[in-house]
């Protein structure tokens, strides 16, 4: 009866425990392929791991299936293209059947299922799997990083390619395990920009030139609030809600929430309390919450005040703002009335990282695919198609990619941005982003933090009380030392 409802959580719980048990069983058998991730590289050379060349790897000829786990159809669709290119390059069909398992992250099932599959091993275990920014740390540096293969062990010449392709540093930081080995990289760059309205910029400052506007809204939050005051004088809101600001604050801080097992409130994150209060008290925003109707409405001037800008990476433009602008061509709704400039602080938001299982029987094939997705900067590499919107044929969505080299030779002009080349802004944006402040607890702790910030900014409690309650919530729910 009513407990059926509660089953949802039941199941989640038992699932993760399952990981434990099967993992236990597995330890009992001898693992023939690679008892330890690091062994092939280490046995072949000196301790200076970073400079070792990639070892030769070979595939088990008996394996015919490549298992791919993902939470959207993005990567599976890439592999369709890969098969085409493979055929063009070699004249042969891709020798593996690709078995895709897609589980959405929205219902909280992807991680437990993936954990189980990784721990369970066997022929159904994923060879390649994807992780999203919200939880990638668990797989690259946290509790589940033991399952990841070092790219180098897949025969990828990591050091050379990372430099050559100019991969944004923050994606490398996130993808590097505690032992210094690179285990995951993305294809998309999610460095953030400030995306603002040209018409409003002209009205307030007489120009919509990104070079000028970036000096109006930044660098630093003081200038940003100065700009907010200018905008307020003309009846505009600088952003839609404090959540917009949060993404920039969160990923520009120097420390993550947890340092050495202790809760740390980075001064930059603590300052968010004051920013949020200031925004609210002065009416600098429309007081919306991100991902709600009112927030989307602000993208086409349907909210209380017209909103000047949003903080976000290219995907926010492509998948959220363009569709919600109330038009499909310049002149309709707010479409075409936008531009991007450097944000007051560098940050990134979201992204997908691609990892391989250390126990894969076909490391060579897996390595080639991963290299093609994450590190190939040629015109037949995935990222070139991705940046130019040609993966599924011409005229697709252009997106920012991990490789700066690829973006430099691609065309990032968007009609949505009034013909601006977004790569001019997003290439440096990726360089400013910092990947060292993530923890595997972020989703939870951010939730508590923003909850308390809104308690404070709405005047329900004092600043000190909000911080105290935040600490208490963290202490109550996580295995973290709170002082």
């Amino acid at each position, binding site marked *: 009866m009513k407990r059926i409802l509660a089953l949802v959580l039941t199941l989640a719980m038992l699932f993760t425990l399952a990981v434990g048990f099967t993992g236990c069983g597995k330890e009992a058998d001898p693992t023939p392929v690679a008892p330890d991730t690091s062994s092939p590289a280490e046995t072949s050379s000196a301790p200076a791991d970073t400079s070792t060349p990639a070892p030769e790897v070979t595939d088990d000829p008996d394996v015919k299936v490549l298992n791919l786990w993902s939470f959207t159809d993005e990567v599976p669709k890439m592999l369709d293209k890969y098969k085409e290119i493979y055929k063009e390059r070699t004249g042969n069909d891709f020798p593996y059947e690709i078995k895709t398992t897609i589980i959405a992250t929205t219902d909280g099932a992807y991680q437990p299922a993936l954990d189980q599959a990784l721990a369970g091993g066997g022929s159904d275990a994923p060879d390649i799997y994807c992780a999203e920014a919200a939880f990638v740390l668990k797989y690259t540096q946290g509790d589940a990083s033991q399952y990841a293969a070092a790219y180098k062990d897949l025969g990828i010449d990591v050091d050379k390619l990372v430099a050559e392709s100019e991969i944004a540093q923050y994606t490398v930081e996130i993808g590097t395990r505690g032992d210094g080995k690179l285990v995951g990289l993305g294809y998309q760059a999610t460095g953030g920009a400030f995306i603002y309205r040209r018409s409003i910029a002209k009205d307030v400052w007489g120009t919509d030139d990104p070079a000028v506007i970036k000096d109006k809204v930044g660098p630093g939050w003081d200038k940003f609030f100065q700009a907010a005051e200018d905008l307020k004088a003309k009846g505009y809101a600088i952003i839609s809600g404090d959540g917009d600001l949060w993404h920039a604050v969160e990923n520009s801080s120097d420390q993550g929430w947890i340092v050495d097992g202790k809760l740390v409130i980075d001064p930059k994150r603590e300052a968010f309390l004051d920013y949020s209060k200031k925004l609210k008290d002065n009416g600098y925003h429309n007081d919306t919450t991100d991902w709600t109707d009112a927030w989307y409405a602000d993208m086409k001037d349907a909210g209380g005040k017209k909103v000047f800008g949003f903080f976000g990476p290219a995907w926010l433009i492509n998948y959220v703002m363009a569709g919600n602008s109330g038009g499909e061509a310049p002149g309709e709704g707010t479409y075409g009335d936008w531009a991007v400039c450097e944000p007051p602080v560098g940050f990134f938001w979201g992204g997908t990282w691609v990892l391989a299982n250390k126990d894969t029987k076909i490391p060579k094939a897996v390595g080639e695919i991963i290299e093609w997705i994450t590190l190939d900067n040629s015109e037949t590499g995935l990222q070139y198609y991705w940046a130019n919107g040609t993966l599924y044929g011409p005229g697709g969505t252009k997106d920012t990619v991990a490789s700066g080299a690829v973006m430099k030779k691609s065309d990032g002009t968007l009609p949505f941005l009034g013909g601006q080349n977004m790569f001019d802004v997003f290439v440096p944006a990726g360089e400013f982003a910092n990947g060292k402040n993530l923890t595997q607890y972020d989703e939870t702790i951010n*939730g508590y933090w923003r909850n308390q910030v809104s308690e404070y900014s709405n005047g329900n409690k004092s600043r000190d009380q909000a911080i105290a309650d935040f600490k208490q919530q963290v202490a109550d729910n996580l*295995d973290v030392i709170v002082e």
Partner: protein
Amino acid sequence: MKGKRLKSVSYAKYGYIFSIPFVLAFLIFTAYPIFYTAIIGFTDLKGLGKTDFTILENPFHNFQLILKNPSFQRSLQNTAIMWTINFIPQILLALLLTAWFTNQRQKLRGQGAFKVLFYMPNIITAATIAILFSTLFGYPMGPVNDLFKMLGLANEPINFLLDKWTARGIIAFIQFWMWYGQTMIVLIAGVLGINPALFEAAEIDGATSRQVFFYITLPSLRTIMLFTLVTSLIGGMQMFDIPKLFLNGGPDNATLTVSVFIYNQAFSGSYLYNRAAAASMLLFIIIAILSGILFYLLRDKDAIKAKKEMKKLRKAQAAARRAEA
């Protein structure tokens, strides 16, 4: 009505035989996981992918931690509050509707359709309902805010979901709205199980609808009422998906229920399985005590009296026999 008792001797074995499937299925699919959890509560098992655990030196350490945990205490209060403001109106409305729909004298037209419709909110998945209600109470724009403005109740948009009591009230309302139909159906099924001869007799004696309901329907429903109360209590104490999906326990822990708390212990980052298991066992104990109270309050007093008298009689007989000897 119960008639004479069966000759119990010859048929007792069927009681065992017919219970076998239940017991087997329980042992295979449920027993092991339960014992597993019960044990974990006394161990140090935490962290993803951990397999080995040892019983703690102080086996009740996790239980003590949970009992002292302010969020747990809060979640107990919240659960009790939200259950009460959902369940009392729910059972009253369900009883009222049951009275209406089983009233032989005044049949409502279309009551079949109503019975079907009232259960419908239970068919939609909780996730859909959560989205629906967050949109309804959207801020700074949303249907309810529009309505308030239209009626002149507020000049500025109100951020309803930031107010603790409003948030609790909405969740209680959602629970009420999702479950009153089911409660009603259960009660109606109970009424259908009442011997029609009773109603016929009342009819002949000239009882009013009200009298029939209070003096015949309600007392006969006692066993089903006990079922409704106990399952609602258990379901309410385990309230999870609406509080989780709608506001994720917020604002400021105001809608954090015990089940959401347990979920957070296990899955919000630290994988504290041991503490989650301990909290589950505590929840079990609380439910068991409360259910025990309900059973006691709604016990069948006549049956117990009869049993006692039987016992006395037997004792007396035995005494008499002894005296004879």
